[in-house]
């Protein structure tokens, strides 16, 4: 990156943070709900992006991990325990289950792995629905409280949105740190060429399990925010549909790209809202748009951004070459 590009990038970053912080002040209850939902789903999608995009392991169970987190938070906070503790438990539980679910990934790959995770997803749904003593069954758990932090209540939509945004910011910074650490390099190596990675001493088993466990833990974290966001938890949001939605977010945004999940979550959460004018045709319109996007850019929205950048730098380079040639010809001419 040149200095100008770095400047543009940081200016863009500041603008986005400002927009996310100041913009919502004018939004109503519903707008804030949607934005909070975007932040929560982004966290879950970042987790899946680690498992799928960085480490290359297909998972159809991320929605189930959001469910695990949501139920952990709902059960604990309705029993008077603080949300912070619930977050730790939700993440810990999702991490442990994710680690176990990673074991099949050591033996099977691609669509076989997808089926294993699909089975887990179904199993989790059955537990949510049938274990009434714990989950309230189809009636769910209502009146999930929103937390108070340092004496400030987040019961109102705006403060709760800021809480979601804050958690998303923390996740972003931590994830950035991880992808830049040797772990990030090892995850990419695992996706690109596991055989070569192993021959360089990369413990592919341990990194595969880690990718699953950490990705799942972020799903659990998203769930622990989802419960107080909707203040009601029942099994229906955590069916396979949510896992597929999250998969769509990662792929539409651009699997393996850092900013992909944020864009993907935006498309998946906001686009259906904007397409409401199309009424009953909205799902068709939504599906058509996603298909067009993936035909145009199989690497998702971030793929388009990267293609633009590459084209521009190629143009700059060829202009520079032309200029150098002209000066050279000029010198020879004289």
């Amino acid at each position, binding site marked *: 990156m040149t200095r100008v590009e770095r400047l543009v990038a940081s200016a863009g970053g500041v603008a986005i943070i400002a927009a996310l912080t100041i913009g919502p002040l004018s939004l109503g209850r519903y707008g804030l709900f949607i934005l909070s939902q975007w932040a929560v789903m982004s966290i879950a999608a970042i987790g899946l992006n680690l498992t799928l995009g960085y480490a290359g392991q297909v998972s159809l169970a991320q929605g189930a991990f959001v469910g695990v987190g949501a139920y952990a938070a709902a059960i604990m906070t309705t029993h008077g325990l603080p949300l912070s503790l619930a977050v730790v438990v939700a993440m810990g539980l999702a991490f442990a289950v994710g680690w176990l679910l990673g074991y099949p990934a050591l033996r099977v790959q691609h669509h076989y792995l997808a089926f294993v995770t699909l089975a887990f997803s179904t199993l989790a749904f059955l537990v949510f629905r049938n274990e009434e003593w714990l989950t309230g069954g189809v009636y769910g758990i209502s009146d999930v409280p929103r937390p108070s932090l340092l004496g400030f209540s987040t019961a109102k939509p705006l403060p709760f949105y800021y809480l979601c945004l804050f958690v998303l910011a923390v996740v972003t910074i931590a994830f950035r740190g*991880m992808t*830049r*650490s*040797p*772990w990030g*390099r*090892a995850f*990419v*190596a695992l996706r*690109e*060429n596991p*055989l*070569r*990675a*192993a*021959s*360089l*001493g*990369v*413990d*592919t088993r*341990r990194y595969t399990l*880690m990718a699953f466990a950490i990705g799942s833990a972020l799903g659990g974290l998203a769930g622990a925010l989802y419960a107080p966001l909707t203040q009601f938890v029942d099994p229906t949001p955590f069916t396979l549909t949510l896992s597929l939605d999250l998969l769509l977010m990662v792929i539409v945004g651009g699997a393996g790209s850092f900013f992909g999940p944020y864009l993907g979550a935006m498309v998946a959460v906001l686009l259906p809202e904007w397409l409401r004018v199309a009424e009953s045709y909205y799902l068709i319109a939504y599906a058509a748009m996603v298909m067009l996007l993936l035909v145009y850019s199989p690497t998702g929205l971030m793929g388009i951004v990267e293609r633009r950048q590459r084209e521009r730098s190629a143009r700059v380079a060829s202009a520079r070459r032309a200029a150098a040639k002209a000066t050279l010809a000029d010198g020879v001419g004289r």
Partner: protein
Amino acid sequence: MSRVLEVVGLSKRFGGITAVDGVSFHVDEGEILGVIGPNGCGKSTTFNCILGQLAPTAGEVRLDGRVVSGLRPPELNRLGVSRTFQLLQVFPQLSVRENLILAGQEHRGGMLSRLFGRPDAGLGPAADRMIGFFKLDHLADSPAGELSYGQQKLLDAAMAFMAGPRLTLLDEPAGGVNPTMLTDLKDRLRAMNREQGATFVVIEHNMDFIMSLCSRVIVMAQGKVLADGAPDEIRVNPAVIEAYLGH
């Protein structure tokens, strides 16, 4: 001179086919051992058994006197055995420097120190020295996928040396490399051997390359070791000429 690698009675059967049939040889410290033989004679299978990629049907592999048969590839690598593959295997999306750091990072500290420690795992300077040694300076920050084939082969070999291995197994390092690049590669491998005492085993079909690089050569045919000796002896060995070199 100590014995780095010892292979004793190694066999590998795939169903009814015996790919490696009671192979025994050794590699001493500081040696460059060449392995030649016709296609399908079991060279790469022998490599894969030594490296834990395949489980041998019979026999033993010893590294510095310790039995290492049955260990997995990452474990063997961390004990000091590194390799390159027959087909080129660098990570195209990572830069040259990142490829080299990756090749060394798992040899340092534990999982947690790799997560919370420095992004380059403290290997930046070592990676830059290796880049200088293999004369890839101007390409340090380019994605490895943008390098020419020969340059990628150099990087591939450099990665094998990044962790300062006891023993390096190179599987056809010269395959598909143009003559100029080949001279560079040979020159660098020799320097690695002379200056850093690196020990290699090299599989290769390019006779000039192997005869001028290696101090000792073993010839394999049909899963067995046919001959073992200095390049000059091998060149005139009647059995080798019959099986492989041709008249």
